């Protein structure tokens, strides 16, 4: 939207104009007086009358500063002392004395003594603002002239830039391009203020016009994250990371890792996530619990821990119930497709997860809060529990969850989520094991119980939102096989051939994902492939 026009002798500005009235009033068409005066001076023509007074306005970034007008037309500039000139001068003085003086004020008044029309050409830069740069990242702006002067670019004979010295960016004059890699000292954000001096055609001998531009150099957030160890004196302190491996020949291996998120590391606060994994030799059940303590709850790290320890204990106590003949038979019949058995299994699992495990775990947190004289909501945590066992008809997997995060089974090139992450209307909002509305809605509560029989299981996964957010983002993606392929390929390649896959899993959790710096917890179950199993048996 550049505009440029040819002026006769001068450009008139209302003398009393103050700073803050800028664009609007000044973009207005010059008053008839002004035009007639211009015309009377040199018959120049107004090509495009709206002329932003303060083209730099959009670029003002950091502290406001006084703006100097360009050098006065020097002795060679045929400076005249006409009343009009004085007018202009007064104007300039006013601008410099005020904080937000419009930047341009660069319409030096050339007298028409040379009687050269082109001599008094002036162009108005556009409102183009240079983009901000980033520490250590290539910065390049091409076609600078066209961006700053738009249609009037052809009127610019030469230009140069001052103020780039310590920015790491240089002007490639022949290419009309700003280029370089800005660098910051100690990650301190910086504002680069530059002055672009330009000569118009046929005005080589005149002092140059000046246009000011500003842009910021941002630090690289990756370099700003601190890693402050958590304070061991804090109540309920826990290690910043934890990992574990359980292996059972002939069945599979269960790997777990949990790592404090960068947002906690930056503040030196504790990890709020927790997990528990267990293999029950006698019964053959595998168990995984993932709990994510609420960031907003002061002792949620303890809430998550209680959810894991109490959950494991209560599950163990319930194994006889799970392995009862009735339920075992119902699972067999369910495998054969019996709908009534499916309902029976569903009913039994509801009793297991809601009555025998979920609610008692919630009560345990309340009890703990009561004896510690804290509020239960200070221990807010999510609760994702899954258990599985090998049956003649495949892996029987059952799960129950309250809150965000995910549980899923990857099998026969299919992905089956075993939970529906509870997400609020905005990011990071969820519900907790300790939320009363969870336990009031029995229909919704029943739907939290999921189960299935799976053949050719590749993996069974339990994870906190620290993993689901960066890798799956939405509920929809969590059921998309291609998303899972990317995820499992990474996991599998990391864990393959490693003597301590749990440590490898922990290492993997350092992955970088902007905006996703929550605690990360993942449990991965990898069954022994059928082939290996046969070899082992042999």
């Amino acid at each position, binding site marked *: 939207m550049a505009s440029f026009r040819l002026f006769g002798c001068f450009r008139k500005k209302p003398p009393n104009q103050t700073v803050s009235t800028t664009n609007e009033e000044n973009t207005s068409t010059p008053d008839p007086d002004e035009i007639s005066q211009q015309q009377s001076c040199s018959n120049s023509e107004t090509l495009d009358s709206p002329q932003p007074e303060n083209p730099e306005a959009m670029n003002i970034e950091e502290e406001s500063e006084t703006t100097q007008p360009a050098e006065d037309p020097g002795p060679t500039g045929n400076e005249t002392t006409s009343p009009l000139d004085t007018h202009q001068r007064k104007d300039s003085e006013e601008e410099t004395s005020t904080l937000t003086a419009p930047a341009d004020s660069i319409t030096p008044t050339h007298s028409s003594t040379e009687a050269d029309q082109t001599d008094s050409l002036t162009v108005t830069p556009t409102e183009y603002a240079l983009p901000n740069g980033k520490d250590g990242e290539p910065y390049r702006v091409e076609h600078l002239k066209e961006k700053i002067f738009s249609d009037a670019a052809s009127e610019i004979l030469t230009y140069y830039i001052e103020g780039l010295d310590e920015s790491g960016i240089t002007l490639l004059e022949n290419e009309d391009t700003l280029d370089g890699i800005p660098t910051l000292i100690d990650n301190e954000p910086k504002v680069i203020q530059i002055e672009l001096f330009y000569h118009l055609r046929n005005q080589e001998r005149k002092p140059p016009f000046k246009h000011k531009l500003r842009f910021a150099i941002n630090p690289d957030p990756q370099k700003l994250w601190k890693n402050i160890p958590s304070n061991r004196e804090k109540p309920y302190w826990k290690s910043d990371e934890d990992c574990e491996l359980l292996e059972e020949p002939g069945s599979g291996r269960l790997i777990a890792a949990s790592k404090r998120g960068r*947002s906690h590391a930056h503040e030196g606060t504790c990890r709020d996530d927790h997990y528990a994994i267990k293999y029950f030799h006698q019964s053959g059940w595998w168990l995984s619990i993932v709990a994510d303590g609420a960031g907003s709850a002061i002792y949620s790290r303890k809430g998550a821990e209680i959810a894991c320890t109490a959950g494991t204990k209560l599950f163990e106590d319930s194994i006889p119930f799970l392995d009862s003949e009735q339920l075992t038979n119902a699972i067999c019949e369910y495998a054969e497709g019996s709908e009534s058995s499916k309902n029976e299994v569903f009913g039994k699992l509801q009793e297991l997860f809601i009555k025998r495990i979920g609610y008692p775990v919630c009560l345990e947190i309340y009890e703990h809060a009561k004896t510690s004289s804290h509020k*239960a909501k200070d221990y807010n945590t999510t609760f994702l529990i899954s258990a599985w066992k090998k049956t003649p008809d495949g892996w029987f997997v059952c799960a129950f969850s309250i809150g965000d995060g995910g549980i899923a089974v990857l099998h026969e090139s299919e992905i089956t989520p075993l939970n529906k992450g*509870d997400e609020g209307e*905005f990011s990071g909002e969820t519900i907790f094991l300790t939320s009363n509305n969870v336990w009031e809605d029995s229909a919704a509560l029943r739907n939290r119980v999921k189960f299935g029989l799976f053949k050719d299981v590749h993996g069974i996964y339990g994870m906190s939102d620290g993993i689901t957010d960066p890798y799956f983002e939405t509920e929809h993606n969590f059921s998309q096989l291609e998303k899972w392929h990317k995820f499992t390929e990474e996991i599998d390649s990391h864990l393959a051939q490693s003597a301590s896959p749990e440590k490898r899993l922990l290492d993997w959790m350092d992955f970088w994902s902007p905006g*996703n710096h929550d605690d990360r917890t993942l449990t991965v179950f990898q069954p022994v492939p059928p082939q290996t199993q046969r070899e082992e048996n042999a």
Partner: protein
Amino acid sequence: MSRRLPVFLLLDTSGSMRGEPIESVKVGLTTMLSSLRRDPSALESVYISIITFDREVKELIPLTPLDAFQLPDFTTPDSGPTHLGEALETLHGAVLRDVKRSTPTQKGDWRPLLFILTDGKPSDSARFKEWTPKVCALTFGTVVGCAAGIKADKSSLETLCDHVVSLDTMDSASFEQFFKWVSASVAAGSTSMGATSSVHLPPPPPEVNTVIRPFRFSWPHSAYSDVSEKNHPIKQ
């Protein structure tokens, strides 16, 4: 794309803000920007929008990522009314248009934050009353009102905000302190948001007087509110 923390700034640009006050606001905003840019979490998530109000309401900057943000120039008329009510209406439209809520296929933004700065009182009081409940229903993470100077009307801000602070003077030191506090609040929001429908604000600096003591505001209609012990089965 990284999840956004939308921050809306409603700034009074009426005639009384002209001169030193508006310049001081600019200095304050400058300080706010540079301190937010030192915070990695804010750099990755904060988006800022500026809406100004005087006799006219302008959406000066729509939601723009902090790293690309450039401070605009403000214009103030000589005099005239303060259309805060209309500004609320504009804000309402901008929030509905630009702030993303979670759906099964879309990751929502963080709950947005709102800061309102005024040195007067809404001239369009009927409109202000009409739009206050509608803006409240947008369930911001926090709504902070700043009553700048002695003529600022705190009582109308109190109907809208869950925190109201006041500045005795409208000089750059006061505004700078206020905006420093805003950036600390935004930074707190960008690292610790989630789980609850409220944001814990850091205590304001001494230059900033708290009119209403900070309290945790929970939205009665949110299905995702914290457990209230009163209603919990264990207490019954």
